[in-house]
């Protein structure tokens, strides 16, 4: 990746999340918070619907970086702010999260900073999402 420059874009990806994904993620992560699978509870606390785990969205967004790197161990730092929940309706279509990334800085030691953008229905669901990577 000696050809990586500031402004280099990472291949964008879309991720579909359904209720099935949330239940499976709850089991794998141990995060059984009711707002992620119980619609009755989610609405009772003022949410529009069941919402995806923030950590699920963060995991999907990371894939744009790790798929680009190949070796996931080249990720040195990764940070996001959760700015907006992703509601997930009880249907087969699910909710689609779109993630793109761009190199914004080249750092010493063959490292680079990548800024990520994650949106749902055109609105950002992650704010100030960035990663520091060691370029291959």
């Amino acid at each position: 990746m000696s050809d990586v420059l500031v402004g280099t874009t990472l291949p964008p990806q879309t991720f579909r999340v359904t209720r099935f994904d949330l239940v499976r993620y709850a089991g794998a992560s141990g995060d059984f918070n009711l707002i992620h699978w119980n619609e009755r509870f989610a609405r009772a606390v003022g949410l529009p619907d069941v919402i995806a785990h923030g950590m699920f969205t963060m995991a999907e967004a990371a894939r744009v970086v790790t798929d680009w790197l190949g070796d996931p161990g080249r990720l040195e730092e990764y940070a996001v702010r959760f700015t907006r929940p992703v509601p997930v309706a009880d249907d087969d279509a699910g909710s689609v999260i779109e993630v793109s990334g761009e190199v914004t800085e080249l750092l010493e030691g063959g490292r680079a900073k990548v800024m990520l953008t994650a949106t749902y229905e055109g609105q950002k669901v992650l704010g100030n999402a960035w990663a520091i990577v060691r370029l291959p």
Partner: protein
Amino acid sequence: MGRTYPPTGAYVVGREKVREFATAIGDANPAYHDLAAARSLGYSDVVAPPTFAFVIAYAGSSQAAMDPELGLDYSRVVHGEQRFSYSRPIVAGDALVATATIEAIRAVAGNDILTTRVDLTTEAGEHVVTTTTVIVARGTAEESA
């Protein structure tokens, strides 16, 4: 502030748990699933996806967030920010100890904002990853009462 909680017992990272987590996030990266692929990258076993560190840190940060002396209403807590700083990726076979520290707690516009750092190290003390979690407890700060 700066309160550090006692280290947890070691969390032993299982190969099937790594695969289960990678499958749950829909990630087919061979390094997460295939031993030979992970070894060809120089790892001793399958690699855990980057955010898996949160699964281990979760118990540690919950311990801090649930501290009655902090007086947080955990039923109104949302995850505000998350950061990971890796020395190396977690791999199956790691036995990791979590040490949680309260980095900051402040009241903003009636919300309590709590920043917790969890350091994951091997039992021998090698740093693997630090997770920093910001949680927001809505409408719980005293000034809002």
